[in-house]
């Protein structure tokens, strides 16, 4: 039986270079500044990667494997909740494609092989637009968006 899957494709244009966009994804010290998380790996095909919340707890939230990597234009990796790391059916796939576009970079994030209607599918469809907006803001202006911002309350 094949499960029903869903996919998402996100595109953003960033006034930056492919190298900087690639580093914004793969370098923990850069990612933490606009994502609030670090993507940690030795970035070799077949290696593990972990998505770690950049706070004192350093919770590992997502895990997966690097499927394909060719800096600074392409990165493919699998993606699952750390709590479901042992269940192969819970792994989806994320592809980053980075190309020069005029004086900008066109970043396409394709998230597919997601289980339709799953919590992960809902989560990433809220998450990616915010993360990509924040990355664009960070690379263009030097400051990201506070992804954990809450209304200021008394």
């Amino acid at each position, binding site marked *: 039986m094949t499960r029903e899957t869903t996919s998402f*494709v*996100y595109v*953003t244009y960033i006034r930056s270079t492919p190298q900087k966009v690639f580093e914004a994804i793969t370098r923990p010290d850069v990612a933490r500044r606009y994502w609030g998380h670090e993507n940690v790996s030795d970035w070799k095909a077949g290696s593990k990667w972990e998505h770690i919340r950049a706070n004192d707890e350093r919770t590992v939230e997502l895990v997966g494997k690097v499927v394909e990597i060719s800096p600074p234009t392409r990165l493919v990796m699998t993606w699952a909740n750390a709590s479901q790391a042992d269940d192969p059916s819970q792994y989806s796939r994320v592809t980053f494609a980075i190309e020069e576009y005029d004086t900008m970079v066109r970043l*396409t994030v*394709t998230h597919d092989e997601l289980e339709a209607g799953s919590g992960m599918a809902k989560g990433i469809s809220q998450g990616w637009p915010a993360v990509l*907006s924040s990355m664009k803001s960070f690379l263009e202006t030097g400051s990201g968006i506070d992804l954990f*911002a809450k209304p*200021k309350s008394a």
Partner: protein
Amino acid sequence: MDADKVFKALGDPTRRRLLDLLCEKNGQTLGQLCENLDMARQSATQHLDLLEAANLVNTVKRGREKLHFINPVPLHDIYERWVRKFERQRLSLLHDLKQELEGGDQ
């Protein structure tokens, strides 16, 4: 990437309907989208072209099919630029009012 294009693309009920349809089910073909729209394929194509030019829709070729995906990233950029800023100010005004009325500063 171009706010004018985004606002223009959103300023039409058919194009908003197309975005709603893609929100319900992402990655549809032109034919699938037309089933839910009372218009000729050619008109739908023109609307989709405008949405694509505004980067609100992306297309991916899969075999002989062209699939349309909603891209909410420019909407998020606009939210950050035009909504959240004012929301934050409003919230901070409410915060100041509460402080004033409750005398929270003492």
